[in-house]
């Protein structure tokens, strides 16, 4: 896999944007700013997915992460809004020794990962021994065989078709388990987020008892 031409330019733009936005996600004082920086990081990574030829995953990333999960995050930030953090009255990081230990750990991790990637990639190259020209020629030859889109500008890849086919054939059991997991997540989050009044109402308690205990949380949880 070797990119060339404009792909290189876009690779550097989007990878640097992803890293910068990730750093700002961690360092922003306001949680809403954090969420917005995380959105831009996710969009940049989706652009990297498109560079890698995974258009379907890029679309899923935008729709699910940016359209679903991050909106959920923003809702929760609005619900539990903490003004002290934004106004600078409270520290956003842990105590200094903890931060120093975490940074030393991260530094060791980055040294280890870079070393591992370097040596592992050299071993991989030795095993596969694929040259830049051969890979580029193979990818252009593969692109020539694809059918042209209706607009005549781009060529349609069969990548999405293959992802869908494998999701329903050899990955069908994990697919069903994933749907079950989503069902459990829906029910679990509804269970977790409801208030004591809603809990009592769902349990079919007599309205007299509801009136008596509805305001007192501790007593209700002791009775149940």
């Amino acid at each position, binding site marked *: 896999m*070797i990119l060339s031409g404009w792909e290189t330019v876009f690779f550097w733009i989007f990878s640097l944007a992803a890293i910068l936005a990730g750093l700002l996600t961690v360092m922003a004082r306001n949680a809403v700013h*954090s969420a917005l920086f995380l959105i831009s990081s996710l969009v940049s990574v989706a652009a990297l997915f498109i560079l890698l030829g995974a258009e379907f995953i890029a679309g899923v990333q935008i729709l699910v992460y940016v359209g679903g999960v991050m909106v959920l995050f923003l809702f*929760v930030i609005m619900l539990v809004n903490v003004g002290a953090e934004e106004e600078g009255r409270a520290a956003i990081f842990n105590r200094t020794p903890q931060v120093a230990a975490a940074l030393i750990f991260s530094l060791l991790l980055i040294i280890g990962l*870079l070393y591992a990637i370097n040596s592992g990639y050299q071993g991989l190259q030795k095993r596969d021994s694929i040259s830049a020209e051969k890979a580029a020629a193979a990818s252009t030859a593969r692109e020539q065989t694809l059918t042209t889109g209706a607009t005549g500008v781009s060529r349609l890849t069969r990548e999405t078709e293959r992802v869908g086919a494998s999701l329903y054939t050899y990955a069908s059991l994990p697919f069903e388990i994933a749907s079950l997991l989503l069902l459990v997540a829906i029910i679990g989050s509804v269970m*977790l987020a409801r208030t004591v009044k809603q809990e009592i109402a769902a349990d079919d308690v007599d309205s007299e008892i509801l009136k008596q205990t509805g305001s007192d949380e501790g007593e209700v949880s002791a009775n149940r």
Partner: protein
Amino acid sequence: MSHFVPVLLLILQETSGDRFSAAWESTKHPDLSKFLVIAAILFIIGVAGVLTRRNIIVIFMSIELILNAANLNFIAFSRYLQDTGGANPIAGQVFTVFIIVVAAAEAAIGLGIVIALYRNRETIWVDEIDLMKW
């Protein structure tokens, strides 16, 4: 003695120039290792965020960053296997779909817990949530 110095300088220039031009060539043609390095940096930013921040929502966002770095690794290896003719290149993309599903479920449950926590304890700072400590 005096004619050693220019030779040394020449050798130094040659080797450093070679190394520099090789690095420049590799930046002009990003390959698998570049994507892996980007993913590793994103992962480490996420780890640092989880370890240092006090706001539990920002910690969740850092976890999303970590999962996204793993996704980038999967997609990069998927493309690499496609180009080198390795075994089943589409598996990386399928696995990424499942990671996104798990991330969505984790965010839903985690944010439900955050709301319940805020309702009971009036705080979202992890160093004040120490009921189960000692």
